[in-house]
């Protein structure tokens, strides 16, 4: 399978489409406001414990995490204790996965022999649902940050590796010939030829890895025995049946996922350029 991620957004967005999108911004805003208002009204009318109104959820999130002193960017102690460790683990795991994935992927994708040798093993590694392996890491590393970082890195590395290898493999043979004629040394060949031509695929892999990292971050923190993190906040609130905090944590994770994904897309646009983002 050539499986990889690909553009989520529409491929061709000409000026006309952009203009239409601009006209729709207002509509989107209206829809969002109406949807939130409807939810608020419905939740208030039903007064269900399970579905609190969004105003209360946002209030709880603000009170829990963002009502701290100005000098600390309004972050409360709880925010420092819960959000920062989670982000740190995720950054470490994703970073390790990205660097090893790209390096190994380029190495594997450069030679047809290496690719044929590794492909079945890689396909199997990718087919394993990552949460299944977390108990193994719990046994090897015991509970705690090393286990969590290892789980994230080990799960997120395969999409980057496989996509990078396929991207490097797809390098135009003509360009490889040109590189040979120009007598580029291996480093130059890597930097000027293989890396740029694999870049769109590398980012397709990175996008998948980022969402896997987020999932594994939460999952490894949901396991019983964790001491801090957003996932811990979730299980802790769940055990106290504190639905409002559960919803607040979900809101936080949603915003976090959105911000991280948008940031990665921005980096991708900068490095790859518009219109070259293909699978």
């Amino acid at each position, binding site marked *: 399978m050539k499986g990889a991620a690909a553009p989520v957004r529409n491929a061709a967005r000409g000026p006309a489409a952009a203009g239409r999108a601009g006209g729709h911004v207002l509509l989107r805003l209206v829809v969002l406001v109406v949807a939130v208002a409807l939810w608020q009204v419905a939740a208030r009318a039903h007064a269900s414990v399970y579905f609190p109104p969004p105003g209360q959820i946002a209030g709880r999130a603000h009170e829990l995490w963002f009502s701290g002193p100005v000098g600390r960017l309004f972050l409360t102690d709880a925010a420092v204790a819960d959000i920062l460790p989670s982000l740190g683990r995720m950054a470490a795991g994703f970073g390790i996965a990205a660097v090893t994935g790209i390096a190994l992927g380029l190495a594997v994708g450069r030679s047809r022999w290496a690719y044929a040798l590794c492909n079945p093993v890689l396909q199997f590694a990718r087919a*394993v649902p990552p949460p299944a392996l977390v*108990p193994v890491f719990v046994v090897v590393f015991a509970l705690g940050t090393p286990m969590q970082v290892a789980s994230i890195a080990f799960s997120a590395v395969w999409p980057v590796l496989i996509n990078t290898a396929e991207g490097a493999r797809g390098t135009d043979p003509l360009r490889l010939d040109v590189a040979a004629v120009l007598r580029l040394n291996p480093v130059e060949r890597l930097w000027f030829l293989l890396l740029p031509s694999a870049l769109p695929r590398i980012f397709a892999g990175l996008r998948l890895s980022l969402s896997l990292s987020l999932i594994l971050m939460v999952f490894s923190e949901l396991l019983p025995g964790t001491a801090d993190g957003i996932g811990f906040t979730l299980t802790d609130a769940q055990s106290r049946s504190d639905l409002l905090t559960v919803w607040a944590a979900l809101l936080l994770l949603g915003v976090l996922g959105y911000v991280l994904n948008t940031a990665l897309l921005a980096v991708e646009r900068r490095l790859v350029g518009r219109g070259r983002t293909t*699978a």
Partner: protein
Amino acid sequence: MKRLRRRQELWLGLLGVLLAFGACEAVGRAGVVRRSYLPPASEVLARAVELGGDRAFLDGVGATLKAWALGLGLSVAIAVPLGLLLGSVPLVDSAVRVIVEFLRPLPSVALIPLVSLLLGTGTETKVALITYACVWPVLFNTVYGLGETDPLAKDTLRAFGFGRLSVLLRVELPGTAPFIAAGIRISAAVALILAVATEILSGFGEGLGIFIAQAGLATDGTRDVLAGVVWAGVLGLVINGVLVWGERRLFPWTPERRAGGRGGRP
């Protein structure tokens, strides 16, 4: 670089598998980590084969696959019509898209505590979570595929007086089908992740994830955990293989590359 022949590729792949197996075996036997922590590959494989004859274990795998199939089916039933609606009515698209964009980035695993509070820890919870996570790849692929249908074919049908619905059913749906299939393939992997993750966290009942979670708690249970992981990996490979084969059979006119995995986010 010369192209390798198919047979050569096959042999090299087999060699790679053997090498990886040998490496795992060596690490397990060398005693870098305690043997009960990381048993040699041969013991794990033997245990995995042994589990194939274990009635209770197979029932667990069956329960996991049932939740997987139900959730995936439900998500397709929701996402394809919704995708067709979003893709063919621009006004609805821009209205609903903002809500979709806010729901999608939420890591689905984070919903496990909330849904378990709402629905308990049974099949319903698994199915609900799988459905939520699997809707997105299918939905986005459907919308994307609709945008890629041949405008000439649509115009031709319109010129012959076919209505909007006929154009949708005769041109757009068949044209989008390969994209939908690719979305389903991505969702199938996501569904397996969610099924196993939910089971590991709930910890009781029956299922492949529950087998893994309980083995992880037992002393010297790593062999069983890894045997369960082997099963999970094989299941993932088989599911993926069957879906790829099905795509090739059903849509032989589509080049691999075009259908190759659009917009998947677990």
